């Protein structure tokens, strides 16, 4: 913006200098050269003094003398040339007629100058410049330069105000978005705070549960110790039982061995009984062979045979008993073997149980230790959660303050937007030659209306106006009786609204409208203050220009256009 202003100023200065140089070169010299000559002399004297001082210092330091001589000669030649030029200038100035150039300005058309100033006072810079054509060239050039500088300034004000309004609108939009985001952030912070509080409560419950679990694990560890001791005792008892079973088995084996010895004794007794039996029979045979003398011997032999028979029967009885005894011993041995195997299995299971109980006890110990660590960690987590909750509450307060600040910023941006719009409307009060000038625009179209022959032609002109300028909601021409001759508007912007068509507008006496009255009174293009459009519901303002007809260019009516502010700002 500043660059544009400087650029425009520079262009205006360049134009003015070129015009002066082309039209009044002598007067340009009169106004500029005296000051330049004085400065030139001062520079020459200063350079001479400085050069002399430096030359003295150089000579004093041992520099060659011919350098000083050459320098002094050069300075003398330069001073003589400059003095000659100054003398020639003043000689030409003394020989010129001083009133030769002032006469055209004094003989200018005061009425043209008055009209130019009137247009200038009304902000119509285009017509103000146009009215200076009849003035002397110098005055016209000065007036034109001033008008163009003012037009450039007004254009820059328009551009700047549009940028201010646009920027303010963007700031307003961003502030609104940020405020909305801050509100959502505040809500999120509240939710996070609630979640953290819930987390803290959960951490407390976890800590309590971990403490109880640690106590249970410690009791389980103690029970594991007791169980391990009991299992050790059981193992010892089973080992003792196994030893006793082994002792019983050993004794049963011993009894089996003894039984075999008894069987051998019984076999021996049986054999003796058999031999005795045979012996008794042989004795009886011998007794029988001895005849009568052998009868007693035969009787004795018979007794011996019976004794042997009884011995055999006793041996059989003992053998039967011994068989039963041996069977019992074998059953005992089998039972002790099974008991020993069962005791071994019980012992193995007991040892496995002891190992399992040991592992269980170790696991219970680990569980207790881990549970205590969990309890401690969750307590720390609880404390950290409390700190986070406090921090989140502070963040919530900051976010709320930030939301309030953003709302204030949004309000400020909105005011800035309105201010930019106000400046823009003020700048639009100037009629400029720029296409951005609404007065220029509407007067162009008014001049087209002046060329039409019928109301249909006017309607087509207004339709073209609506088609080519999207920020114009409605365009209409009202004649001097207040009758709306032609009216055109954007259909899409009026969708869903009650439209003021041409028929409705013709029922209204437009001569009572402020824009019509202002144009009819001033015969100039005017702008209204912003208002809400009945067509789009958005803010707009009206630019109205007079329409003239006939050779005398009599006032024939008013061309009005309703400018949609939002669309116009986007353009």
């Amino acid at each position, binding site marked *: 913006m500043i660059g544009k202003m400087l650029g425009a100023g520079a262009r205006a200065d360049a134009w003015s200098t070129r015009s002066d140089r082309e039209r009044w070169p002598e007067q340009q010299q009169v106004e500029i050269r005296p000051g330049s000559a004085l400065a030139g002399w001062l520079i020459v004297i200063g350079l001479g003094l400085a050069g002399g001082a430096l030359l003295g210092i150089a000579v004093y330091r041992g520099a060659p003398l011919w350098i000083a001589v050459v320098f002094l000669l050069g300075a003398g030649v330069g001073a003589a040339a400059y003095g000659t030029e100054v003398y020639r200038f003043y000689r030409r100035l003394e020989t010129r007629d001083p009133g030769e150039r002032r006469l055209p300005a004094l003989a200018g058309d005061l009425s043209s100058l008055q009209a130019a100033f009137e247009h200038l006072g009304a902000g119509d810079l285009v017509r103000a410049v146009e009215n200076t054509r009849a003035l002397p060239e110098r005055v016209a050039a000065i007036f034109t330069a001033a008008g163009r500088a003012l037009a450039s300034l007004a254009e820059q004000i328009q551009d700047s105000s549009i940028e201010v309004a646009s920027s303010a609108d963007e700031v307003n939009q961003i502030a609104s978005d940020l405020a909305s985001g801050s509100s959502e952030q505040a809500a999120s912070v509240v939710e996070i705070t609630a979640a953290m509080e819930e987390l803290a409560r959960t951490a407390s419950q976890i800590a309590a549960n971990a403490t109880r679990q640690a106590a249970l694990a410690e009791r389980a560890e103690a029970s594991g110790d007791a169980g391990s001791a009991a299992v050790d005792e059981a193992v010892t008892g089973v080992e003792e039982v196994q030893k006793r079973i082994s002792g019983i088995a050993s004794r049963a084996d011993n009894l089996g061995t003894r039984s075999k010895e008894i069987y051998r004794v019984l076999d021996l007794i049986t054999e003796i009984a*058999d*031999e005795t*039996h*045979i012996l008794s*029979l*042989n004795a*009886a*045979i011998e007794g*029988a*062979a001895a*005849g009568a003398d052998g009868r007693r011997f*035969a009787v004795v*032999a*018979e007794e011996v*045979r019976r004794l042997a028979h009884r011995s055999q029967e006793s041996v059989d009885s003992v053998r039967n008993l011994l068989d039963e005894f041996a069977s019992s011993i074998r059953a005992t041995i089998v039972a002790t073997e099974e008991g020993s195997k069962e005791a071994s299995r019980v012992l193995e299971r007991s040892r496995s149980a002891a190992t399992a109980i040991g592992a269980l006890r170790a696991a219970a110990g680990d569980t207790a230790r881990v549970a205590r660590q969990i309890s401690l960690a969750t307590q720390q987590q609880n404390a950290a959660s409390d700190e986070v909750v406090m921090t989140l509450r502070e963040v919530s307060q900051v976010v709320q303050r930030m939301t309030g600040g953003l709302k204030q910023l949004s309000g400020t941006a909105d005011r800035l937007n309105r201010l930019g719009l106000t400046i823009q409307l003020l700048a639009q009060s100037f009629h400029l030659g720029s296409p951005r000038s609404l007065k220029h625009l509407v007067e162009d179209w008014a001049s087209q209306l002046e060329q039409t022959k019928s109301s249909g032609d006017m309607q087509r002109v207004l339709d073209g106006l609506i088609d080519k300028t999207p920020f114009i909601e409605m365009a209409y021409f009202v004649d001097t009786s207040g009758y709306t001759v032609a009216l055109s508007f954007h259909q899409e912007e009026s969708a869903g609204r009650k439209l003021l068509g041409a028929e409705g507008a013709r029922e209204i006496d437009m001569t009572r409208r402020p824009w019509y009255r202002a144009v009819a009174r001033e015969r100039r293009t005017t702008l209204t203050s912003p208002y809400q459009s009945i067509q789009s519901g958005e803010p707009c303002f009206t630019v109205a220009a007079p329409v003239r007809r006939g050779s005398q260019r009599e006032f024939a009516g008013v061309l009005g256009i309703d400018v949609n502010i939002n669309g116009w700002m986007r353009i």
Partner: protein
Amino acid sequence: MSPDAPQKDPSSGAAPRAAGSHLLVRAGDYVCALPLTSVRRVVRALPIHPLPGSTAELKGLSEFGGEPLPVLDLARLIAAPPGANPAFPVTIVAWAGPAEAREMVGLSADAALEVVDVPLSSVVGGDGAFVLGEASVGGEIVRVLDLEALGRAL
């Protein structure tokens, strides 16, 4: 010579016979009564050396008193059905054949039971040769054998 060695009977038929004194022995499933006057000795079953080509009744030769002793299978001689395994088998050394030419033989039996009196009048039946007949002793049927007839049968 050993007094138990088999020898020719010097009294050949003149020796008094104890009427009815018999030695009961078990052969197979039968109980036999041997006249005690013909029995010389009862010994534990002697070791037998079989003779190839001999009859089934002759089990083989043993040694008794330093002399060879032919041993006969008493169960086969009386055609007794086989009985239980003998717990204490014996060999009966006895005189066989007529009194004037009797010889000492061995009779293998399953057991020697006892000496009983068997009245000859109670002996019934029989083939009139080796098996003199049957008699009831203690309620049990006993086959009464005639060892003199055994020599003739051989």
